[in-house]
């Protein structure tokens, strides 16, 4: 095993979290990560040593996921709906954050356009800078910021519109 492979193994936890945010399901996330690693290893000649390996792998992962998304119209599964906690404290933040269940967040993210889902996973979940995201996606930083701001406002609205509507959405069978 060479050094690049060792570094890929070190990156696996972060890639898994990124894929988890995209797919909303840990098994699907691992499928995506496996595809990403295999694709990366098969095309190692396209990676420029000295550039960031993690950026390159995020790019491969998001490309694969967007391809799957377009080809199959994959939709993230709804996670089992957790009991909504009705926190009646005066702190608004506590009330809102109690709605941040995997089910609610998955539902909210799945309503976003795929390109915005990728941005949310990269910046909000993985903590990449706007500049890094712009470089990976090969779009201007201003585009990243305006898309991301819209995505997060929509996501916030979806999460805070209440656990009741999330429950309805989660129980509504897909077409």
């Amino acid at each position, binding site marked *: *095993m060479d050094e690049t*492979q060792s570094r*890929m*193994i070190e990156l*696996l*936890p*972060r890639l*898994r*979290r990124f*894929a*988890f*945010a995209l797919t909303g399901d*840990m098994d699907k*996330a*691992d499928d995506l*990560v*496996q*595809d990403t*690693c*295999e*694709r990366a*290893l*098969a*095309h190692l*000649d396209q990676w420029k040593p000295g550039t960031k390996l993690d950026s390159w792998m995020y790019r491969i992962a998001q490309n694969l996921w967007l391809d799957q998304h377009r*080809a199959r119209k994959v939709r993230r599964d709804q996670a089992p709906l957790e009991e909504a906690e009705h926190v009646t404290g005066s702190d608004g933040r506590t009330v*809102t*954050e109690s709605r*941040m*269940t*995997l089910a609610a*967040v998955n539902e909210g993210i799945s309503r976003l356009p795929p390109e915005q889902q990728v941005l*949310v996973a990269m*910046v*909000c*979940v*993985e*903590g990449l*800078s*706007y500049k890094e995201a712009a470089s990976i996606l090969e779009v201007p930083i*201003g585009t990243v*910021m*305006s898309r*991301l*701001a*819209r995505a*997060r*406002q929509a*996501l*916030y*609205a979806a*999460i*805070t519109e209440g656990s009741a509507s999330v429950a309805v959405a989660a129980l509504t069978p897909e077409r």
Partner: protein
Amino acid sequence: MSFVSDERLMAFADGELSPEETRALEIMLAEDLDLAARLEPFRLTGAPLASVFGAALSAPVPERLLTAIKAHRRARLYAGKKNPALRSGLLDELFGGLRFASGLKPSHAFALSAVLVGSAIAWSATQLTSTNTDPALASFGAGVIVASGPLSDALEKMQSSTVAAAPGITPVATFAKEDGGYCREYRMTTVGGATYAGVACRELGGPQWRIAAHVEVPPTKPQAKSTYTTASGPQTAAVNAVVAAMMAGSVLEPADEVKLIAKGWMPKN
């Protein structure tokens, strides 16, 4: 009071502003409740959102992912497109039994290679059919392994099926290669019940199916699958890696496959 854009508020929440800009905005936020309310969507979709997916960071990494990375050296050798020296090394590793036993009958070669290598191709068709005809399933020369006999026939003429014939050879999927030509993934089951997975590729207009990968699949209960899925398990990671490396686009539809078979694997007109 000056207008603060959504993007700037978001950059504040994400810590992307300079210390000066951050301080200035903090003062504005303390005085302006509407502005603070506009900040909330960006705050909530920051660290609190990330924590929802945090379990993935600490969960143990599944073995299959580690294998996918660690198995790469072998897989690259199998594909061996760019480095003939490595490929030659691979042939020793994978098919060493055959080279060692090149003066022997194919069935002996199979037995030897199976012992020596553990994952060599079933060289004799008797392993599949129990007939007296004994055509080799592959021939070897100039560092290239080429399908022959029943294996070649199956790759050339059989439609892919998700239900593998046992014993026998079953193509399970066909895909276009990135540099033209086609590859087919196949399964092979011997009378003894040993199962192999492999990939064979044919250049555009080329006369032969070259074997790009061939590994033994450990015995498991076969699962009914209605659609094509790649083989699983560490032993077949190499096959999957070869497929990933060579595949251009997706698996061919049955109708396209029928056309290609009819045209002798010459695409279009």
